[in-house]
């Protein structure tokens, strides 16, 4: 009887992999496969032929508009998700097209390592390169000896560029916006082996009194845990 059952399942295996069984039959098959090493092996063997079927279709070039639509939607969703609630800055979003890309490297990703930091640097470079039409003010920071830090401010947003800061594998540099006595986290960055790095400040400079940088644990902090290394007075 068991042998008959097994034969039945084995006969249905191709139909199962082709998604041609009913939901109930597929469920039974799944349960059987979980307990049957022979069918597991056979399913693995046959599965690769099913996976090849899409490659047999005529390959078409998708219309470029499809890609544009997709990416427009994706970037708009990112901007929407990450914009502070109720900040009333929606009108400014269109001129912050480059900023949507800046925020493409999310905060947790920065902790992944130097590769992603390089990516973030690249995006920042891209951002400035594409916003040449806007007026930017460069502010010099108070920084440790041997380091040079500037804030390239463009209205409410800016780019902090650093050089000569030590690379720390066990820490991350965190940017803070100071408003009076309050300090708010504004981003994380690391520096490369030559001591250079950059961080985007998407907004918040309009009413800021200073931008600070401190060394924090790799995942960043909600409040500074060390004294600021860098101070840019605004």
């Amino acid at each position, binding site marked *: 009887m068991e042998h008959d059952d097994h034969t039945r399942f084995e*006969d*249905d*295996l*191709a*139909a199962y992999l*082709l*998604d*041609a*069984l*009913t939901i109930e039959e597929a469920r039974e098959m799944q349960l059987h496969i979980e307990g049957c090493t022979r069918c597991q092996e056979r399913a693995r*063997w*046959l*599965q*690769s*032929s*099913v*996976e*090849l*079927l*899409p*490659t*047999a*279709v*005529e*390959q*078409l*070039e*998708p*219309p470029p*508009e*499809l*890609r544009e*639509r*997709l*990416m427009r*939607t*994706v*970037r708009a*969703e*990112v901007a929407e*998700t990450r914009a502070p609630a109720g900040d009333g800055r929606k009108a400014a979003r269109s001129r912050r097209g480059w900023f*949507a*890309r800046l925020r*493409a*490297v*999310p905060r947790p*990703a920065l902790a992944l390592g130097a*590769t*992603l930091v*390089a*990516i973030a*640097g*690249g*995006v*920042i*470079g*891209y*951002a*400035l*390169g594409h916003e040449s039409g806007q007026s930017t003010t460069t502010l010099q920071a108070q920084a440790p000896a041997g380091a040079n830090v500037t804030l390239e401010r463009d209205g409410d947003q800016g780019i902090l560029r650093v050089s000569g800061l030590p690379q720390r594998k066990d820490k991350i540099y965190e940017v803070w916006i100071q408003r009076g006595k309050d300090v708010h986290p504004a981003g994380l960055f690391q520096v490369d082996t030559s001591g250079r790095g950059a961080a985007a400040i998407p907004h918040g400079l309009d009413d800021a009194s200073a931008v600070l940088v401190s060394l924090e644990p790799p995942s960043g902090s909600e409040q500074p845990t060390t004294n600021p290394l860098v101070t840019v007075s605004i």
Partner: protein
Amino acid sequence: MPNQGPNVEVEALQRLADEDLMPLVERKDPAAFEIVYDRHGGAAYSLAYRIVGDRLVAEDVTQEAFLSVWRSGARFDRARGSVRTWLLGVVRNRAIDVLRREAGRAPTVSIELDTVPEQESRFEPTDAEALRREAGREVRGVLAGLPEDQLKVVQLAYFGGLSHSEIAEVLGMPLGTVKGRMRLAMEKLRATLAEGV
């Protein structure tokens, strides 16, 4: 200062394997998502078109599939296969859903193999893409060598989204025969392609 930003970003991400891009997609990184689309959007659109038979609908299916990947936080499990296989599975499911929603619509019963020459891409194919195209040609060759009745049941199931009993009804043959032909076709495909693809 020279602006090397976009090159740094794109080159760094493009060096990543699909499986390493997916965690970035999960963290809502549009640049990683864009690369995943660039690598697999063509295959996805082609498969969608093969199933639904209409370019505009195929566009919608492809868009929905990729957005579902983006919005779902990318439920990709690398233990269960490649990103491409997984993505094409998402596309196929969406396309079959469309077919099924269109109640009464005749299934895609054409057993014409896709013998139309592939469109010339505007871009030079990457090595990976060239290998995929070569694999596609091999698979088409093997499928072309299958007996017509075996090919038909496979096409109706995979590209038409029909169950075995629906196929039996459409083709007017016993259920056991349908299952048998599916099995023979898939075994032959697998055995022929066991080496080299």
